[in-house]
């Protein structure tokens, strides 16, 4: 065989590398550069100097603080809740035989449904208009409560709808992953455990959970990343002016800083984006470290 030229491998990689450089590496570096350029002016494409001013500004901006808070609340509530609920539903699905396929389809439907369409459904459920208070309020009425405006009302009500919606949207995928993970646990382990006199709760904690833990951690990690990047779901529920609704997220803040009504500040947007990156990176590293100790990959 002819000896290959050492650069030949790089030649093969070149198209992919070029693509990555143009669409990934360059923007990344650009964002990094922007974030340190102070007083950038769009019109003249010039800036005053370099430093950490953009970060200081963003971190003091009440809109960013609000967006940060919203994002964290969404992450902390929806990731554990959706994963836990998905696990419960998958366990239920794995126990029933009758109509299992039908249920699986039903639970998977939201996944293939357009976000905005689901948003519309939530509007019907929760929105208060001149003609109706929304279905949920009708229910609250039926139980003797007073109606709540979930879309334009108090913060907690909006946050409730937001989390409800997010959980609803992300759950199908988790159910899909977890049902197949559960189905992948060989039946013989359960038989062995029963012969050994193991109670069903212990079977779950000592056998099922460890065996599907790689999948759970996969879902938690991707769930965190996804929830930190929340934006479109918020728009679907509360419209594009998220700051006015008090429901903005970090990604929403970045967008507003670039293209919003009061936008045109790529430096602030870049700083916010990099702050988000730092947060996601840290959390993911912590997740990976925990999973290394806890999860048995076999």
């Amino acid at each position, binding site marked *: 065989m002819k000896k290959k030229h050492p650069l030949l491998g790089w030649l093969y990689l070149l198209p992919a590398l070029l693509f990555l450089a143009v669409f990934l590496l360059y923007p990344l570096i650009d964002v990094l550069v922007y974030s340190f350029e102070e007083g950038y002016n769009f019109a003249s494409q010039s800036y005053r100097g370099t430093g950490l001013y953009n970060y200081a500004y963003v971190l003091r901006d009440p809109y960013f603080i609000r967006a940060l808070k919203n994002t964290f609340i969404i992450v902390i509530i929806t990731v554990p809740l959706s994963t836990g609920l998905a696990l419960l539903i998958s366990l239920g699905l794995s126990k029933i035989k009758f109509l299992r396929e039908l249920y699986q389809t039903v639970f998977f439907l939201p996944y293939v449904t357009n976000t905005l369409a689901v948003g519309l459904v939530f509007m019907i459920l929760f929105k208060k208009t001149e003609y109706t208070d929304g279905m949920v309020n009708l229910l609250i009425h039926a139980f003797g409560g007073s109606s709540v405006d979930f879309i334009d009302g108090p913060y907690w009500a909006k946050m409730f709808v937001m989390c409800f919606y997010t959980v609803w949207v992300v759950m199908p995928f988790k159910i899909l992953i977890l049902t197949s993970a559960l189905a992948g646990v060989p039946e*013989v382990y359960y038989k*062995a455990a*029963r012969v050994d006199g*193991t109670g069903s709760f212990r079977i779950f904690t000592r056998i099922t959970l460890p065996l599907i833990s790689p999948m759970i951690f996969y879902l938690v990690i991707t769930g965190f990343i996804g929830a930190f990047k929340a934006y479109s779901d918020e728009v679907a529920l509360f419209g594009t002016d998220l700051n006015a609704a008090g429901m903005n997220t970090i990604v929403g803040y970045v967008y507003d800083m670039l293209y919003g009504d009061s936008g045109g500040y790529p430096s602030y947007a870049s700083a916010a984006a990099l702050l988000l990156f730092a947060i996601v990176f840290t959390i993911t590293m912590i997740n990976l470290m925990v999973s290394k100790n806890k999860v048995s990959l*076999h």
Partner: protein
Amino acid sequence: MKLVLEQLTKIFPGREKKNPKDVRAVSEMSLTIEDGELVGLLGPSGCGKSTALNLICGLEAPTSGRVYFGEEDVTDLGPEHRGVGLVFQNYALYPHMTVRQNIRFPLENLKGAQKLTKEEVEERVQEAARIVQIEELLERKPAEMSGGQQQRVAIARALVKKPNVLLLDEPLSNLDARLRLQTREEIKRIQRKTGVTSIFVTHDQEEAMSISDRIVVMKAGVVQQCGRPQEVYDRPANLFVAQFLGTPRINTFEGRVKGGKLFIGEDELLKTSAPDGEYSVGIRPEGLLVDDAGSFHCGVTAVEVMGRDTSVVFTHAGSGEEQLRAIVPGGSVASDKKEQAFSVKPDKIFLFDKESGERVELS
């Protein structure tokens, strides 16, 4: 502990469309196993061996019939209340636990009065590990061990809770020939040492015969015969049992009895007191003696030298089979022989009823 099965039957109902027929996996199985006995449960694939074990350990509920442990009726008890140790065909060691954790697991399930202190648990784990000789493997994960080692861990896990009954479902089927031989001796040693009443499932007749106190031969869910290995080999209840036990397989012929004499084809073999009529005749390969004056005339196809013995492959007009065999002392048949006469050992020849397959006494 003594184990009694009484008319045990398991029917798996057929599913409506795909598979409409009911499966009678175990049919009216009655069996008494004495305390400390090692019984080999033997039969071809799909004959209901695993199902029988599942009924005994309680993983499956019988359609009818009872199971007794000692004097106690355990038919309606779940597996957790029966105190059985079960070794699965593929061991079923929990992959995420170390060997030590695997063996300890059944002990950690004990509740109430049976609950053990930490020290007692460790002691029992050590003891079980010592019996199966895996003390130095305790910190390994199952994936880091050989098949034979995993199998011993599985036995240790089954033994650690001091079960009333030890059930082994084809525990050697994943091992290579040499390891099988070694491990089956090991199982016998462990069983002797602990004195636990055991049932050993296998479809390998040699394996069953070599280590069992008694063997039970099954076919299609029905027990065909039960007895000491030699006894079952020497006095098979029917043609199926005769064919199932022994390698090489027993030779079968079409024969008839006329006037107190047994004929195969034109050859008159021996005198018999069986009534006149058509029979299936079985002759064990070691029951044919090279004898040029013998009355059994065969066409030799091949002479296979196997060291000490020689295997003569032959044909006979009285049998449709092409691969009849006789095992004779080495060198007693020349390799270029085309024909050979044999005489037969009367205790190696069996008559079977043509309809039922039941054995008919020769004399």
